[in-house]
């Protein structure tokens, strides 16, 4: 791989204020890492990768940019690896009833039957359901749990795994590689356009647990794929920690859309490391609906590596209550005539905090590149806050880079106006919120737009009480 993106994550974050740094206490033992590797019967190269990542984790400095996390104690996360007592099934009826019921409540069997080409569900640390429809198989598409891919397609996996998002990027990336378990591998052959989305669904069932799933998507030349990622967890008494990763490699002229609907419960500290490489003429789209979790830190990123590559990120985050969303999209223009577009919307209410932390970098030689970033936030009350830290590294003069940011504060006059037309306060707020998110919803597949719309409505149904 002829590119080096090491260090970006930390480098760009200097100059941002912080109260205290993250302290990561507790140890991840070498024997635990070895144990995970052994139980997965991994080849030597993967075991060594884990151990190298572990060494890096132990030495790497703690991230400095997250003022609101004072401490993450790994000793308190009692289960860094949980294998559910369930055999992988390809038929819902083969799952134990209590597990099947979780998925039924989430509507997954119906979604799979209706509009998905494939579905993988990860429970705690392992895949428990893998459904691949026949037509997808006939197209030559590979969709298997990540562990199975390591066994069955070692050459393919070796070529891409950890190449897009190396463990040397930051401490949490290193921790992820040491402990990764679960996730899905998707390979779309040259010229194959997958007509329906595939989905991976992640469910964290226990408290004080860590989930470190790794998904890798390889879209060969001229292929097309829509990948949906869903996340959920029941309301737990204590915190759990999610440090997942997605790597996408988009070969020339391919198109990959990655859609996330994150609805973790309010105990989850969610780090989601997402990065794509787009080669010549490829298109990568990130859509991220960030609804749940206690703290979410995620910056879907694309390295536009080939001439004419494009990327679009559409982000929607909601922080209703004392929750924190630290999101943003990062784009590195590393080839001529590449283009990127980011639209980010955030809504904060009841003491919520939203931070947009984006990066646009145009490397020397990426002539004729264009980037446009638009951030909007809607602040529903005085207790809530929204901050924007866009960072631009412009190393090439011949590039067109634009950034717009705007903040909308819901005013008492607006609420009064709508209430004077007979709407209750919460109905008025809902109407404003829906209006604010509309252009984001328009970009989503229909099922997700309507689901997200409902989530948004429910979120603000009780806002401001009755009347």
């Amino acid at each position, binding site marked *: 791989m002829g590119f080096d993106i090491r260090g970006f994550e930390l480098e760009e974050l200097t100059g941002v204020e912080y109260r205290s740094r993250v302290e990561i206490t507790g140890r991840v033992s070498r024997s635990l890492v070895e144990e995970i590797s052994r139980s997965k019967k991994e080849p030597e190269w993967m075991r060594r990768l884990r151990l190298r990542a572990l060494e890096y984790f132990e030495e790497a400095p703690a991230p400095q940019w997250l003022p609101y996390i004072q401490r993450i104690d790994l000793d308190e996360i009692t289960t860094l690896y949980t294998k559910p007592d369930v055999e992988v099934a390809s038929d819902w009826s083969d799952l134990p009833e209590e597990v099947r019921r979780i998925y039924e409540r989430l509507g997954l069997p119906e979604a799979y039957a209706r509009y998905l080409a494939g579905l993988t569900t990860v429970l705690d640390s392992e895949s428990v359901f893998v459904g691949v429809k026949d037509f997808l198989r006939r197209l030559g598409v590979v969709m298997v749990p990540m562990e199975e891919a390591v066994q069955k397609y070692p050459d393919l996996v070796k070529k891409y795994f950890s190449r897009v998002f190396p463990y040397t990027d930051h401490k949490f990336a290193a921790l992820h590689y040491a402990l990764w378990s679960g996730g899905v591998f998707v390979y779309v052959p040259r010229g194959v356009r997958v007509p329906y989305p595939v989905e991976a669904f992640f469910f964290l069932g226990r408290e004080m647990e860590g989930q470190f799933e790794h998904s890798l998507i390889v879209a060969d030349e001229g292929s097309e794929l829509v990948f949906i990622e869903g996340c959920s967890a029941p309301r737990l008494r204590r915190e759990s920690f999610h440090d997942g990763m997605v790597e996408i490699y988009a070969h020339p002229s391919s198109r990959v859309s990655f859609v996330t609907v994150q609805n973790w419960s309010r105990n989850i500290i969610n780090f989601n490391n997402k990065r794509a490489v787009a080669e010549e003429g490829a298109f990568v789209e990130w859509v991220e609906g960030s609804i749940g979790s206690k703290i979410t830190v995620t910056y879907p990123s694309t390295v536009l590596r080939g001439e004419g590559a494009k990327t679009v990120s559409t982000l929607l985050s909601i922080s209703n209550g004392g929750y924190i969303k630290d999101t943003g999209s990062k784009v590195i223009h590393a080839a001529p005539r590449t283009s990127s577009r980011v639209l980010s919307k955030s809504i904060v209410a009841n003491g919520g905090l939203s931070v947009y932390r984006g990066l646009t970098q145009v490397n020397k030689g990426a002539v004729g590149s264009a980037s446009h970033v638009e951030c909007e936030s809607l602040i529903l009350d005085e207790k809530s806050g929204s901050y924007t830290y866009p960072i631009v590294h412009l190393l090439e003069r011949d590039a067109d880079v634009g950034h717009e940011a705007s903040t909308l504060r819901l005013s008492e006059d607006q609420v*009064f*106006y709508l*209430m*004077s*037309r007979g709407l209750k306060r919460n109905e008025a707020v809902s109407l404003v919120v829906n209006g604010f998110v509309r252009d984001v919803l328009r970009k989503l597949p229909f099922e997700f737009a309507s689901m997200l719309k409902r989530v948004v409505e429910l979120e603000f149904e009780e806002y401001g009480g009755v*009347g």
Partner: protein
Amino acid sequence: MLLVDNVSVEVGGKLVVRDVTVEVGDGEIVALMGPNGSGKTSLAYAVMGHPGYRVVKGRVVLNGEDITNLQPYERARRGLFLFFQNPVEVKGVSLRDLFKAINTSWRQVEGVDSLLEETAAKVGLKRELLDRGLNEGFSGGEKKRSEFLQALLLKPKCLLMDEPDSGLDLEGVRLLADYINSVAREGACVLLITHYPSLLQLVRPSRVLVMRNGAVVASGGVELVDKIAREGYSSVVSHNGL
């Protein structure tokens, strides 16, 4: 029937309306006149229930019911309508969205979409403005037409109209005057706030009140309008010995 009974209004601790009494009977048009800053809009906001305009004395009675402590939406649902002088922009919420929400919330009307379009045509509001954010980039006249359209669709029993004619062209003013006359004929009560006498040539109120510095300083018949038009506000105030 609307009764504003000896009402005082405070905004941010400052008294902006003092001891005002206004009574508007069913089918009656009462004009409330007065120079800028005399407290007319504050009175209208207080009657509609804006939380920032606190009624610190007196009461507001609508059709025999004391509504002083009701929420704005409860007043609206009882048939009170405020025609805003300068309606606020609400980004992302169009007239169409607003009426769909009203329909879901409290006022089920068949065929909202076609009704909106017909009414827009009737009041001369460009169709595309039905789908833009409320008042977002609307001209002065377009804002009035949007208020007018909302009044037509909500069919209120009691209208507080705050300078409904400013910014409208002649044709618009005539349309509005016809509307006010016809709703009054049908039994609605109308409190018409204006400080231009022009609309009052087309809508003949049965009574005229003049406010200044938060208080009613003159009242009388329609002849007051003509006098104000000829000689200005000071003429009626001094004439009444205040």
